[in-house]
């Protein structure tokens, strides 16, 4: 056989900048970055709660600083974007069958958003009761 002279470019680490679809994929993956910030806030809150009322007050003040609110606002948007992508994947990974038919994916997506709303209402009740 003649010497092979094929050309095989290696995928560079910036491959995801080359197509809008891949940018959206990377945005989806990056939703966890502001999430991690929020989770660290919660952990800090847990430990300041353990240290008494004064440090708890300190944590509440920390949560009020504009930069923290800004990053957490980003985390909120990220969580909704994540939900939007994640809910669409679910019916494809685990198609549910009822009465010999696959449930329409849109119905499953809608059902999951309904869950988000229920949790929001529940949270509103938990945080606002007796105020």
């Amino acid at each position, binding site marked *: 056989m003649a010497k092979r002279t*094929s050309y095989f470019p290696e*995928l560079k680490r910036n491959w995801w900048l080359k*197509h809008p679809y891949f940018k959206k994929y990377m945005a989806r993956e990056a939703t966890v970055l502001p999430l991690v910030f929020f989770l660290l806030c919660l952990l800090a809150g847990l430990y300041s709660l353990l240290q008494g009322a004064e440090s708890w007050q300190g944590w509440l003040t920390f949560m009020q600083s504009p930069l923290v609110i800004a990053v957490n606002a980003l985390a909120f948007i990220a969580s909704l974007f994540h939900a939007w992508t994640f809910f669409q994947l679910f019916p494809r990974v685990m198609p549910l069958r009822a009465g*010999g038919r696959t449930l329409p994916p849109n119905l499953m997506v809608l059902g999951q958003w309904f869950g988000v709303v229920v949790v929001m209402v529940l949270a509103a009740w938990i945080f606002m009761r007796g105020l």
Partner: protein
Amino acid sequence: MTTKRLSIQRYLPEQGNNTPYWQDFDIPFDDSTSVLDALNYVKEELDGSLSYRWSCRMAICGSCGVMVNNTPKLGCQSFLRDYEGPVKIAPLAHFPVEKDLIIDMGLFLDHLAAVQPYLINDSRLINDSEEGTETFKQTPAQMEKYKQFAGCINCGLCYSACPQFGLNPEFLGPAALTLAHRYNLDSRDQGKKQRMPQMNREEGVWSCTFVGFCSEVCPKNVDPAAAVNQGKVESAKDMLIGIFKG
């Protein structure tokens, strides 16, 4: 007739040129001119040295895949009318390029073969009585389970759309894993046990991060991403069963 500018990636190693380069052509086109028609026009009228693959012209043989503006497409199924401005045509990504738009699909074919994509069923061999020549029976409901995943034409577009295959060519990839899942779902098949070890590997279903672009580009709406991720559920179950059986 208006013309459209085509930029085609050329690679001609036998002429001593070991780096690919771009060559522009102006192609007369109308509403019915496909990318494949345009390539044929180049070869017949402008530059006979251009190499590319094609056969059926009707999205059946799966041989005319190319990157059109960085997206994997079947040349015969993409039309110049749908592109504004110049059109960039390159060989399918993530495969070694042999010449111009011709890639070496060997890796893809190896991965396909690795999952044993055919009916595995010994029952017809037990006694070579008349049953041996009988066809398998299958109800429409049983067929429905795998039908969507059976439409693959082995064009390889999904491999060019998959960054995980691009990052690691050992990854079995969308079409192979889809075929594995398709046969595992087939009521006539008994080969799941033989296929699971391939799917369970790191380079089996577990290299996938559900980018999803493979399903986007698939010309047959096979939805390989769904199949691969259903394969993850199967592989996870397989692991659990393995643990309980000890």
